[in-house]
């Protein structure tokens, strides 16, 4: 009995801690959405209240969408993240297949190199890449935003771990059925790895949709701005106090990710569980 009551108290404490954590995590977003709905004069009142007395949503969102070409930035974001993801998959899946299933000289060295690369933060290579792209004349292009991320060592590692679990017999059966090695990669391994690809896709898209650092370095032209750059631009462009439109823009930029998460929530959790188990 005591054990049970104790565990119930523990459960209460656990929920309290988790609940507080959730509040801390969610509070900025709540304030963001609330602020985006308030008119200017209400934002700067000394006393804080969560809900607006008067709706200022229309003017804030209107300003966010007109003062800067926010929709264009969103389109840039879609182009860049989609291109990055597609190219990453094109590189990751064959590389991971080779590392997991093919026997060749130097395989373990190569895999060691992949592991080492996992430890290098991309900020460390940003400057050399910047100089390289300057030489190649690629700065201020979509290519500058996409190319540095086409080889994802994290993706290679993740997919390799998944492919290790695919039975060798399946690959041998495909060889006997007449598939080429690329045929095996795309028609046997990739379909078997959909859960891993979904998990990786989420990590990749979230990371590059929200990336601020590299786009800030790589592009200076407004036409190439990704959504985070666009928000920053909105802030700098105004008098530094246009919080309403700023929060509206932030809400618009986050919305696609939130909606995508809600739609694919189950898959997302599966992906996390899966990577946790395999990694």
């Amino acid at each position, binding site marked *: 009995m005591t054990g049970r009551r104790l565990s119930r108290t523990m459960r209460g404490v656990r929920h309290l801690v988790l609940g507080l954590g959730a509040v801390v995590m969610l509070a900025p977003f709540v304030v963001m959405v609330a602020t985006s709905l308030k008119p200017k004069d209400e934002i700067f009142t000394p006393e804080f209240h969560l809900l607006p007395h008067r709706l200022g949503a229309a003017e804030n969102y209107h300003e966010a969408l007109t003062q800067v070409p926010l929709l264009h930035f969103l389109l840039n974001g879609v182009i860049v993240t989609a291109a990055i993801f597609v190219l990453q998959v094109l590189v990751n899946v064959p590389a991971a297949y080779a590392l997991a299933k093919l026997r060749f000289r130097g395989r373990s060295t190569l895999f060691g190199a992949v592991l080492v690369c996992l430890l290098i933060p991309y900020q460390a290579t940003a400057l050399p890449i910047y100089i390289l792209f300057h030489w190649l004349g690629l700065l201020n292009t979509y290519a500058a935003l996409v190319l540095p991320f086409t080889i994802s060592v994290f993706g290679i590692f993740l997919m390799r771990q998944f492919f290790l679990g695919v039975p060798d017999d399946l690959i041998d059966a495909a060889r006997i*059925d*007449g598939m080429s090695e690329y045929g095996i990669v795309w028609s046997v391994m990739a379909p078997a790895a959909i859960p891993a690809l979904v998990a990786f896709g989420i990590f990749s898209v979230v990371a590059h949709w929200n990336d601020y650092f590299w786009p800030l370095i790589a592009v200076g032209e407004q036409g190439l701005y990704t959504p985070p750059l666009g928000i920053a631009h909105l802030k700098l462009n105004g008098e530094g106090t246009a919080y309403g439109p700023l929060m509206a823009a932030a809400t618009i930029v986050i919305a696609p990710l939130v909606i995508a998460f809600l739609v694919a929530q189950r898959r997302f959790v599966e992906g996390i569980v899966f990577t946790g188990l395999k990694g």
Partner: protein
Amino acid sequence: MLVSPGMAGTDRPARRGAVALAGIAKRFGEVSVLRDVDLEVRAGEFITILGPSGCGKSTLLRIIAGLEPQSEGTVAIDGMSMDGLAPDKRDIAMVFQSYALYPHLTVAENIAVPLRMRRLTRLQRLPGAGVLRGVRSTNGSIAEAVRSVAATLRIESLLDRKPSQLSGGQKQRVALARAMVRQPRAFLMDEPLSNLDAELRVHMRAEIAQLHRELGATFVYVTHDQAEAMTMSDRVVVILDGQLRQIGSPAVLYRDPHDLRVAQFVGTPRINVFPAVATPVGIGVLGMPVARDSGLAIGTRLQAAIRPERLAVTTGAGIPGRIVFRENLGSDLFLHIALHGMASPAIVRCDPSAIEATEIGATVQIRFPAEHLLLFDGEGRRIARDG
């Protein structure tokens, strides 16, 4: 070489799928897995490669398939060298222990893969290419072939399911169908029944043997289960420690093993092995004189083996022992009899009616006819095979 009974009659048409291995050796780095394997599989034969796990039998099959390159030797099918040829160019099919079905494809799509890979070009396999006339007619003929092979294996009702919705036996049928659909000249089977439960395994044995008779193609079947080898095959190849020890029909292998380990591997319960010594009048087995000429110098140690059904319990003179265990299978009664100076008990097959006359702990005498003793030298090689 012996011609086994029940083999292909001469009235059948010329068959394809004669597999010839010459001097096959395989090394993984320093480790030698196979040494000097010569084997001629006749067209249309059901041959089983039998051996304990790790003996190299699966590697041999993978070398025939072209999935693994041999370190030495040649593989030929129907007189054509297969060396260096990719698996899909060898016109063979393989069935795996793990079934190896494509998990994202339906049963029908799984069975169709070998035909699609052969009859359609890369472009024609793209989704949507089915609207082209040539592709449509090819797809039609593929669907027809899939239906016909599914009918043979009685899996028509499963064609729209995914492999995850099938039982083990159904999966193995689908794998067989995928192998059969393009009518290869040889079927290579790597322990196809080992993942099935005992009852289904016995059932599928009969079914695969039946399939072999209907198809008339060459079957090369790898297993560690001597019962499978003995019941299904025209001939059995025993591989031990990477070396081919004996080839022969199941009956010959049982009756006339060339090697003590072959004798021990084939037959359940295991063959009894007694220490023996060459004497002036013949041999001495457990102190009992037996009139058999070993041809060895007097005093040489050897091993005498005898099948459980050749031993008998007697009330007369014999080797005394104590009954330690009785196994009554209904049709047979196996008595385990501890003998003086023997670590493991001797096993004697009796008629089950003898159960009343036996009791655990009782002392009995066992005897054996001298002519049924199989004699092996110290290294386990058969001697005096004339007996």
